[in-house]
Each structure stands twice: as structure tokens, then as C-alpha cells.
């Protein structure tokens, strides 16, 4: 379980990092927290020629209202994020040691369908800001997440930051998931954002990417009914039953 040979670069500036990505494209991988990438390397399931370690790049660790930079660790999201749904969802990510290294942007870029933060961010209508030497673009997370471990990120782009929109006054949020073992990948999970103008449910580990379901605001009044509506397009079976129970639980616990 040693990684295959690779070159390693640790640029100090964003421009240097982007230049390396532009030069090496598909042959390069960005190393931030490494909590997904390093195990993949050790299993030799990915073989980048170059690792671009961005941990020394200045200015990527900003966590302000509505913005989460590329080097913000999950542990900081859990403790400091303004949005309570993100704080709550972050507590379910792995173990404290993993959260201390892993980053929120890294989780979004990795796009594991069972990951908590992409699911919660999707329910919040979050966006991503991508930067390359060619310039900058913004996408809604809904457009960024393509499938399992697959996103709209181009090989020369860096996921610079997450943009989390302000929710209207009176919005309540909730999160629930079930995993066999504490800290393990969830079998299913649900984030709910109950806004005055509508209920957004986002489900993890039930589809190839987090699944967003929009329901009318009135649905909030009956969590059981809302839950059954939220999962109605899923294949019947245990996972749907589990997801339904978790939506209801997330909604009942929403605050």
C-alpha cells in the first residue's frame, strides 16, 4: 500500500498552482487534505504523474459568510460555518482526524455520492467558483456534480471556493443519516432546507450523485408525507425505506 511513483510540487502562489495544472492537465492531481486521494494512491487506483500540493498557497483558507475556500478543513466548517446545516452535516464526515485534514472543497471535487457536504450544499443551492489560467467561472453545484466521482471540473481548473447563498428569514434546516458504523460511509442520508417559499430535500447515497427534490412549502407541515414524496422516484426497496425515514427524521429535527 505504497503509492506508485509521482512527482510532487508545492507551489506558494495560486498562479504557480494554476500554471502547473495548465501544463500537466490530466496528469496532475490537486492535493489538499488528501483524505480521499491518498487512499486511492495507496491502492494504486489512481496514478497521477504530478501531485500539486496547494497547502502552501496563500489565501485559500477563507471561511466567511457564504464563502468556503479551497483549504478550509471540514473541522472548521463544523465549528465555524455560518450556515447551521453545514455545521451539522460536517459532524457526520468520517472521524475528527479525517475532518481535521479533509477539506470541504475537496469533498465536493471528489463527488462521492455518499458524501455529506455536497448533499447539504446542494440543498442550500450552493455554487462553485472554478479558476484556471484561462480565467474563472461559476457554476451551480447542481450543474457541477455529474455522477459518481465525476464533476464538470476541467483538468486545468482548481475548485477555488464554494458559495453558499443566504437563506431567507424563517428557514429551518435539518440533517440525518444512517451508517452501519459510526464515521463510516452512510447507507443513506438526507438534508432538508425548509424555506418559507419551499422545501428542499437532498438525498445522499441513493443515486449516482446527491439527489435534489423540491417540494412545496406546505409539505413541511406533514414530515411523513413530505418524506414519502421526497423518495417517490427511487427504486422501491430497503434504501428507499431508509431514505424516507431519514427525510422524516431530518424534517422533524429541523431548526
Amino acid at each position: 500500500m505504497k503509492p506508485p511513483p509521482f512527482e510532487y510540487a508545492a507551489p506558494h502562489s495560486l498562479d504557480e498552482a494554476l500554471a502547473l495544472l495548465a501544463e500537466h492537465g490530466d496528469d496532475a492531481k490537486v492535493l489538499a487534505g488528501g483524505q480521499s486521494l491518498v487512499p486511492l494512491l495507496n491502492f494504486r487506483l489512481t496514478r497521477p504523474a504530478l501531485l500539486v500540493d496547494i497547502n502552501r498557497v496563500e489565501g485559500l483558507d477563507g471561511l466567511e459568510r457564504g464563502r468556503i475556500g479551497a483549504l478550509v478543513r471540514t473541522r472548521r466548517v463544523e465549528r465555524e460555518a455560518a450556515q447551521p446545516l453545514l455545521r451539522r452535516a460536517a459532524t457526520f464526515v468520517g472521524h475528527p482526524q479525517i475532518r481535521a485534514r479533509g477539506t470541504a472543497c475537496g469533498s465536493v471535487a471528489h463527488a462521492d455520492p455518499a458524501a455529506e457536504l455536497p448533499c447539504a450544499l446542494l440543498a442550500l443551492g450552493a455554487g462553485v467558483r472554478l479558476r484556471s489560467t484561462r480565467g474563472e467561472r461559476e457554476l451551480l453545484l447542481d450543474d457541477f456534480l455529474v455522477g459518481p466521482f465525476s464533476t464538470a471540473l476541467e483538468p486545468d481548473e482548481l475548485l477555488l471556493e464554494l458559495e453558499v447563498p443566504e437563506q431567507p428569514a424563517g428557514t429551518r434546516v435539518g440533517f440525518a443519516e444512517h451508517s452501519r458504523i459510526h464515521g463510516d460511509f452512510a447507507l443513506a442520508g438526507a438534508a432538508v432546507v425548509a424555506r418559507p417559499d419551499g422545501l428542499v430535500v437532498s438525498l445522499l447515497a441513493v443515486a449516482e450523485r446527491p439527489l435534489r427534490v423540491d417540494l412545496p412549502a406546505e409539505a413541511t407541515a406533514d414530515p411523513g408525507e413530505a418524506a414519502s414524496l421526497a423518495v417517490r422516484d427511487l427504486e422501491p426497496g430497503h434504501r428507499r425505506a431508509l431514505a424516507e425515514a431519514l427525510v422524516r427524521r431530518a424534517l422533524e429535527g429541523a431548526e
Partner: protein
Amino acid sequence: MSYVGRPLARGEDERFLSGRARYLDDLHPDDLLHAAFARSLLAHARLGDLEVEAARAQPGVVAVLTAADLTDVLPPPVVEPPGMWVADAGHPILAASTARYAGEPIALVVAESRALAEDAAELVQPDYEPLQAVVDPRAAGEALTRWEKSGGDVDRAFAEADVVVARSFALPRLVAAPMETRGAIAQHDPDGGLLTVWLSFQDPHRPLDQLAHCLGRPPESIRVVLPDVGGAFGSKGAVGPEVVAVAAAALRLGRPVKWAEDRLENFLAAYQGRGLEADVELGVTRKGRLLGVRARLYADLGAYLISTTAIPMHTAAMLITGAYDIPAAEVAVVGARTNKVPTGPYRGAGRPEAAYLIERMVDEAARELGVDPVELRRRNLVRAFPHETPFGWTYDSGDYERCLDRAVELAELDRFRTEKRPGRRLGLGVGMLIERSGGNWESAVARREPDGRVVVRTGSSPHGQGHETTFAQIVADELGIEPTAVEILWGDTEAGPAGVGTFGSRSTAMGGSAVLEAARRLREEGGMEAAAVFESGLLFSSGCYAAVVEIDPETGVLEILRLAAVDDAGRIVNPLLAHGQVVGATAQGLGQALVEAVRHDESGQPLTISFVDYPLLTAWEMPELRSAFVETPSPLNPLGAKGVGEGGSIAAPVAIANAVVDALHGVSVDPPFTEAKLWEALR
């Protein structure tokens, strides 16, 4: 004042908890080389020409060895249980023309670092000609072992039975998953000719004999040394092919070679536990008397036999009558050859399988007869000792009914029985356990030092059990000194006396008794040094576990509301350490019940190769454990002690299983009891 019986804290913990323990991978002899293995990618394939030149040409690579280089090395010897037919199918050190499981070693790469060795090992690739893989033990065309045994008048028992209950069961394979994986360092001294092998192993003497056999060297030309060992649970009691290959490489290269197994290798290539399917029949009278049991066992042995592969199924078959006075029994055992890594002992090693079969059957019989399962047990427990089973094992002592009563009380089964009502998926279960332990012999040498300390060398060797503490307690009592004045040494075949080994819950009863007798002789004879060998027949620990569970009908999630553990391990030397054994064994037993299962696809590819695919329980998942001891001394050793290391892994799974099936109103399911499986069973 006596130290035996007191909950002394472990003296060795300061070393472990402060990070001063030294494990195999902490050892760095001068000039050390590192090994990595090229392993078969397929579960069953004919191997064409092996391309090794590319690997040999890699930077830092010192040697690449294949089967052609090791023609003078033999597979490890196979232990044959009494009466069992065992095939000549020892584990090749490196696969020659055929690979029989995914992960089987094909070539050994030795390089200046493990990373360089892995890079080169990747380049060693044979031409594979895929062959059909056997995954299902029931469908296997080839047997590695066969055995039939009958005791008592089985035909009459089933003729007289009013009810014959027949059920089939399946217990998946498990990985032992010790925190420290396997490993070896071998170093040859060309002057004296001594081959020193440091091992992460359960004990030093068995591997010495196995290595002598494989390498064709006299035992006295080999020295085995064990550093601190980070857990084994049965999985470090037989040398695997990797250890032999590393020793052979060190002999050829004249430099020390280290193999520190990584977790991926441990999942792929360390021998696994359980893996048993069974068809069982139990003959019962209307009044609830168990008359006879018949079982056909299909053990998923894997591709080869390692030294101890044949033992667990023998133990499982021998214990098929469990804690009950069943006069007749018959077993037929087929050890099926499958395209998987071999199996071997894992905590319990046949005892959990036996307990699972007979205890599930007793519950099935109770359901069929409409009697309370606790009551049915009470009517059939062994009560008179010594008790000879139909297969000829003699239970030395016990008070099984007291264990049952105590477990029922601790788990509050009577209260929960009244809380069962429609709509609530509450289930109650108990499981009795018989833990064959001890037997054979151990030795010890006690010596007085000029400063008043007593140094005891023991052939018994710890890998987490706490020998330094318990053995010191025994010596302190015998000599009237403080336990801190006793030093226990072990783990070096040059420095210590001979020994059998640390397995099957035998250290306290056998090693401890040898230590006791050496200390007694030192006192009585008044010299500076005294030695003792202690020998005895098998001991049989017992106990009862009880559980109350509830299944959420909406999600299938299982919750354990009560779990009680009552163990009778004879006289307890150190209640704190005994309790630790109960907690640890129960945690592993719960893992088996709730989440653990090795899985393969139909081509024999292992699907569980990391802790992501094969979870282990954490402290979070542990329910409150209500533990108690019943102490019925064994008449067979001066301590009155028996084994306590396996009870939880034997009885906790079946207590949970019986509770789960109760909650499912009799729908039969086998572990692991995952949410999806229970949800389906409720539909």
C-alpha cells in the same frame, strides 16, 4: 494476602500506552532489505511464463524469487485432527503453474525499500489462463478433508423422537483484523549458521518447528524471537508462505529481509476464520428432551491447507452437543476446496460455529414445541461432571444452570418478555457456550536473582493477554513476594524454555500452572533455579450470554437493548483482565453478528479488501455489557483455572441471532444482521 483473584492493573500497560512497545516493524537490523509479493490477480488460473526481468532491472531491486528458485523449500506441515482424512494440499510457498486464489503469492521481490519492492512487484506478471473458480463450498467438487463421527445410538434417538427439527445455516468467513498485521524479519549469520527470525506471531515454538520443516534445517539452527505483538486472535499461529519465502530469501541473499504485511495483504492473504455451512437435525420428545443431533458441515477451507486449517471444523463437530446432555450425535464434515485464501483459527475457532448450530437448533425446537427456550435448555443441560459427550470429550466441571439463570437475570429477560407486543419487534435470545481450552503442556523456569527478584521464563507467550501481570500474581503468591518483584520473560526460543503456544484460551491454565509449579519447586527445593513442565487434559469453560434486541420495522435497524455475559472460566486469576477478555471477545462476537462478512464475487474476486468494505465495530457501537463470572474450579490444574479468551466470540453472536429470529417471529436469518437483511425478512 493473596494476589491471585485480585484485579491488578496490567504492569505492561505503561510500556504500551507510552508508545515504548516495540513491534516487528520497529526493528531495523543493519543492512536490512524489504520484501513485497507479486500476487495472483485471479482466483483460479494457469500461470504461463513469468516475466521477472523488468522487475529485476528496477532501481533498488536486489532479487526477484519465483517458485523455480525455491524448489528445495517445502510447504508448511499440516496438522491432522484425529481420524480425519486430510488431503496433501499444503500451501505452496510461491505459486508455480497454477494460482488458486486471488492474492496468492507468485513472486517475492526484495529491494532496498518497501516502496521500491512494491513498484517492482507490480511489474511481475504472468500470462494468466483463467480457470473456473469455485466459490460455493456446497458446490465444490474437491474435498481437502473428510470426516465422519458417530456416538451413541443415533438411529434409535431419531426413531424415538416425536419431533425432528431440520434447519440449514451459513456463517460467512471473517477476517481477524489484528491492529498489527503479520510480519517477519529473517537474518542469517553465516559464521555460526544460525537463522534468526523475528516474527509477529502468537508464540515462538510452533513457527520454529514449521520453519525447520519448510527449510529442511535442524530446529537448533533456527532462533525465533517475538517482539511485542499487536494482536492475533488466532491469525498468527501458523506460518504463511510469506514467512517461509522471506526466510529463504535471507538465506540466499546473506542480508536481513523484512516483510511487514500491509492491510491490503492482510485482507487478501492472511488466513480467515469461520466460513461454514451446515444442515442440522435435532430429535426431540414432546416433553422437550433432546435425544440426538445430526449435522452435515461444509467448511469453506479455501485453496490450500495451512497448518491449522483442519482444526476449527474438527472442534465445531466435536462440540455439536454443546452444553446439553444429548446422548447421540453424528457429524459428517466436508472440507471443501474453494478458490479463496485458506481458513484457519479465528477467536473461537470452531466453538462459535458449534454454539451457533446447536443453540439456534434448540431455539427452533422450542418454537416448534411451543415451550420457552430457556426452559427447554434447563431440561437438557449437563448437570453431572465429569461428563463424557457422545464423541468422547470429557467436560471437567461446570454449573451450566447457574450461568443460564444469571444471564437471564442480568439481561432482564423476564421483564422484557412481558413487554413483547404486536407491532413491536422485540426479541429475546440466549446462547450457552462451551469453550474447549487448555490441554497439552507448557513449561517454565523460575530463578532467584541476587537482588531478591524472581525471573520466570515461560514458554507461553503473550500477544495482548497480560501474561506479565497474571503470571507475576501467581508467582508472588507462591513465593510470598510482591508481583513487582517478579519479572516474566518469554518469546525467544534461545532464551526461554520450550512451550506449546498461546491459542485456544490456554495460557493461564497451562502456562500459569507451569509457572506456579516452577515457583513452588523453587520454594520447596530452596535452590536458585527450578523448572517445571505442566501437562493436563482438555478443560471446558462454559457460560451463557443473553440478549434483548429490537428491530425498527421501518428501516431494519437493529438495536441491542440488553446484553449479558456470564462466563465460567474456573478460578479467575485477575478479574480485571478476565473482564477485558470478555469485553474484547464480545466486541468481536458482536462484529460477527452485526456487520462482518468476507464477500467474493462469482469469479472468486474478494470484494472486501479494506475497512471500507469490511467494517469493524467501534466503541460507539458497543452496547452496555452486563458481565458476571461463575467460578467452578477445574480439577485438572493447581490454579483451578480454565480459558476465558473466547467466550464472548462464541456465545454473543448466537444470543443475538436467537433474539433476532425471535423478533422476526421465527424467520430464519444468518449473520451478519444488516439493516437490509432484517428489513427484507420483515416483508
